[in-house]
């Protein structure tokens, strides 16, 4: 268990929990919910994390990523 901002580039992870309700609702629309498997594409220094959900690229601000718990995808 770790948070999305700590994942290294290229790693494949499963979303466990999105802490903020508002962010969670928006993320579901983008197809990103608890249980989704994503690949970490880019990490900007202290900045946004870019992830691939399989069909699209999303950019998440660092403080959003910090509040998303993930685990290594099998």
């Amino acid at each position, binding site marked *: 268990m770790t948070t999305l901002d700590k994942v290294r580039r290229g790693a494949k992870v499963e979303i466990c929990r999105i802490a903020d309700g508002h962010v969670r609702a928006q993320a579901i629309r983008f197809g990103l919910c608890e249980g989704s498997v994503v690949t970490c594409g880019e990490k900007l220094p202290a900045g946004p994390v870019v992830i691939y959900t399989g069909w*699209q690229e999303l*950019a998440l601000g660092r403080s959003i990523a910090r509040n998303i718990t993930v685990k290594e995808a099998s």
Partner: protein
Amino acid sequence: MELPKGKKRLVLVGNPNVGKSIFFNELTGRYVDVSNFPGTTVEIHTAPYGDYILMDTPGVYGVSSFNEEERVARDVILHADIVINIVDALHLERDLFLTQQLIDMGIATVVALNMMDEAIRSGKTIDVAKLSKHLGVPVIPTVAVKKQGFQELKANIAKASLGYADPRIQSELDKLIATGMGRGDALLILEGDEEVAFCHGQQAFPLREEIYLRRRQRVNEIIADVVQAKQIIKKWNKLLGQWAVRPVTGVPILFAILMAMYWFIGVFVAQTVVGLTEETIMLGIYSEFITALIFRFFSPEGFLGLLLAGEFGLLTMAPVYLFGLLLPLVVGFYLALSLLEDSGYLPRLATLVDRMLTGLGLNGRAIIPIILGFGCVTMATITTRVLGSKRERIIATALLGVTIPCSAQIGVIAGLIAPLGFSYLVIYVLIIFTIFIFLGTVLNKLLPGESTHLLIDLPPLRLPQVKNVFTKTYLKSLAFIKEAAPLFFLAAVAITVLAYTGALTGLQNWLVPLTEGWLRLPRETTTAFVMGIMRRDFGAAGLYHLTLTPQQTLVGLVTITLFVPCIACIMVMMKERGWKDGVAIWGGSFVIAFLVGGIIARLLG
């Protein structure tokens, strides 16, 4: 909006960047803006189409009230008779969420499955008939940019149907509907929309997440059944996309783009083109002719003669500046901006600069109003609506009003600073940039509340369509002239009256402590400031007449840049942010402009 009798509301709904505007154009024969970034249009376009009134909505990922665009779209959708839902075949997984929500709202829907060609090229096969069967509404494949599928879509509008809604919330929905509201309103209340609930005197339900998750699951199931995907990724596209957000490559790319823009607007347009339009055509041919003509009938000393063809004349200065100087610059800027917008680069830029903007209480999305501000601060101020919180909107508006010079002004500034050499350009940029950072940081500390964070999707980069870029440039430039021209003529009249009555000299003398004493500029600079209250570029242009040392030019330019935004802009600020914040920003810009100007004068002196 009141409808003519017998007309029905036909509403275009879709995620951002799916080509809605092309559908609007195609159906009504009118052009509206096509843009690649979520949130550059918040206005609703309407036009008659057959028995319908066709309405465009801002691109949204779902119906609710997360931000201004969604609220605008929501209110139009709730009153829709029929919805044409435009879906991006490439991003079906994302877009069908909205489709299913529309169906759950109980609105008659027809789906246009757009960008079918790109989906096929990317290795996706979509079983359209099966998709239609799953959703329970007509699905028409289209390729909007190539005008394919429109006939079939038009033929199917009347066949729009209700589709298969989520059955599990029916009993709660029925209870709400029984109180006399529509199904759409009822669903939004269940999904926790407090604004809609308030309108109906109800409490919002805490069911949003449950409903959303089930909807997402259903969409994923449909996708699994109708889509067969073989991943064919275009290599250059993906690589360039990565490079654009990775700082090591992204920053050089950004600088290359900015340098190209500077070369194109600041050098080619501001010097070569303007040299031709202003010097040769407007001053050399037009002005000579009109002055000679006017002075044949009016005395060059009399009020009417001065008003029409004097130094600040209605037929001399105003058209020369407007068409000779500003128009070419504005066209150049919008051309560059349209290319950026249509390439899909802006969301990646938002990602790249997000970190820097968080320090100013903004997130990466705010780069869009800021960039638009370099075109027209007034227009950019309207766009700040898309920012997530009130404090972000205030910060962005203040930064725009105080520190961002608009394209017209940049042109004049570039013209004045270029002869002084590169070092003066660098100093000027550094000063303005420092104020930008300082103002943002201070406002971020002072304003209460919390800012929202970046959460955007990054569309693939694509080559802009030449025709689209030109149409857009044409329309935006036209809008600029329509907005700027009346103010220009007004300013010309005001200055002439001030000059003729001697008020200008009086004001100049009265402000000597400020101009000569504090800023160490000649007293005639007052004229530039008075003009600057009307339009900022007008103010900068006023410096052209004066004989200034390089240091004085720099002080004058910095002061004029930070000086109050134009009248149109201030009116929009008051309308958007309320008169209190508007006046505060206006007053603040006076203080900052003169304070910084004086300090620079001392540092240089």
